[in-house]
């Protein structure tokens, strides 16, 4: 009598577990925790870079394709662009906003490609996330360790969106990317208007990795 009860209870418990976990999986489409997301994407990208012979030789197009496939989906470029443009954002028309976002995205991808190209197997230190499970706005800290110098910190400011966590600012060594563009964008809009800023971004993006005007003349 007793062993049979035990067996029944076991089966019941196992069934209940599966039903429960199945139900939970259904109710909550899995959203990866922000710190895990950063860690997984970073390690995946770095792994590809270290293994890919063409990237090692400096194939820029391939790095950019890699970033577009693996990294871009986790960035919220609308928020990044609007906050880099700052108070002038409302001066732009809907069509100008789209172009601004596109051009800023291209610029950031290219910059990011340069940064990745200089990666040479430094060690990462993924810091534990300090946030409550209910938080929807967190900062994920990653540090790059290098002998003889202070670790370089990279902070990802992330916000929880319906499709998962999205990055809206990156701070490298305390320098916020978005904040650093704000003055530049502000100056350009003051001097040449929104259209002028878009033109400047297009010109920059079309310069094929060449440095700014002063440097380009030299070549």
């Amino acid at each position: 009598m007793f062993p049979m009860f035990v067996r029944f209870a076991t089966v019941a418990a196992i069934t209940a577990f599966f039903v429960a976990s199945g139900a939970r999986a259904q109710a909550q489409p899995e959203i990866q925790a922000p710190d895990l997301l950063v860690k997984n994407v970073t390690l995946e990208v770095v792994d590809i870079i270290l293994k890919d012979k063409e990237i090692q030789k400096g194939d820029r197009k391939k790095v950019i394709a890699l970033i577009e496939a693996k990294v871009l989906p986790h960035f919220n470029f609308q928020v990044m662009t609007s906050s880099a443009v700052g108070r002038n954002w409302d001066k732009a028309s809907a069509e100008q906003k789209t172009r601004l976002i596109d051009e800023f995205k291209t610029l950031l991808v290219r910059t990011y490609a340069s940064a990745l190209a200089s990666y040479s197997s430094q060690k990462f230190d993924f810091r534990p996330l300090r946030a409550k499970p209910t938080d929807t706005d967190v900062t994920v800290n990653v540090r790059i360790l290098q002998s003889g110098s202070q670790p370089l910190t990279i902070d990802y400011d992330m916000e929880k969106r319906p499709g998962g966590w999205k990055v809206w600012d990156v701070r490298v060594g305390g320098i916020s990317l978005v904040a650093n563009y704000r003055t530049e964008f502000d100056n350009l809009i003051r001097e040449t208007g929104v259209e002028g800023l878009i033109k400047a971004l297009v010109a920059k993006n079309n310069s094929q990795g060449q440095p700014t005007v002063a440097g380009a003349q030299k070549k």
Partner: protein
Amino acid sequence: MKTKRIIRNLFLALLLVGVAGCATTGADGRDPMEGFNRAMYSFNDGFDTAIGKPVATAYRDTLPGPIRGWVRNFFANIADLWIGAHNLLQGKPADTVTDWARFAFNSTFGIFGLNDVASDMGLEKHDEDFGQTFGRWGVDDGAYVVWPFLGSSSVRDSVGLVFDIGLDPVLRHKPVGVRNAMTILRTTGKRADLLDASRILEEAALDKYVFQRDAYLQRRRNQVYDGNPPRAARERPLAEAAEPAPESRPVSELQPLLQPAVETPVARPPVVRPNAAAIEAAVRLLEQPASVAASTGG
């Protein structure tokens, strides 16, 4: 003697160029000397293109990585002595213990500091200088300054730099020949370590001068607070800011909200979430008068 006079004349010439450039003063409150600074910046940029970058590139391409690592570690080890003292001055004795333990381990087990064994042991390197110590004591940046050869600085950091240079064990080393050789080696190594960063800057910036200035000011602020600057001082753009927001409230209406937080001893802009423009306005209000006051004395 003769070289001294040449250097002095060069400085005077640069100052004249800078003063002439002052006529085109920019609108940025943190940078009242923009004309002078831009002149210095383009001088430095030219010098770097002609000498700094080629020498650093040759250094990087000639010497294998491990040897460049020794050079970096050797000078970093010497610097740890003063870094420890700064942490003491800034009221962080635990960090001082780390810094001086690093010096002890690296100087012995690390063979005269050539190897950074302390980092492998979990003793983390810090980075401190007089500018940061003054900042920790509450001194504001003051106006942004670009010095010939030395590059980006601020009024506060320039004063700090005088102490940094005056008390630098490498620069005080005798005989002079060894001192000069060490100084050149250290500078070359540092520039070589920044080759990637400067390439990224070229890639990223629309206006290199503005980009570098803002990066410098942000980085120094971050350093003064050891990586944890008061968070509210950063604008926190939210998704809502991107969508057509309802009429933005003027800053004056925010005043009641700002009041309680401003009264606390660490008066920094509090976190309020109404809209990006209002926050930016608040940040500007709090930033500008302080820096102007510090630079002009009133």
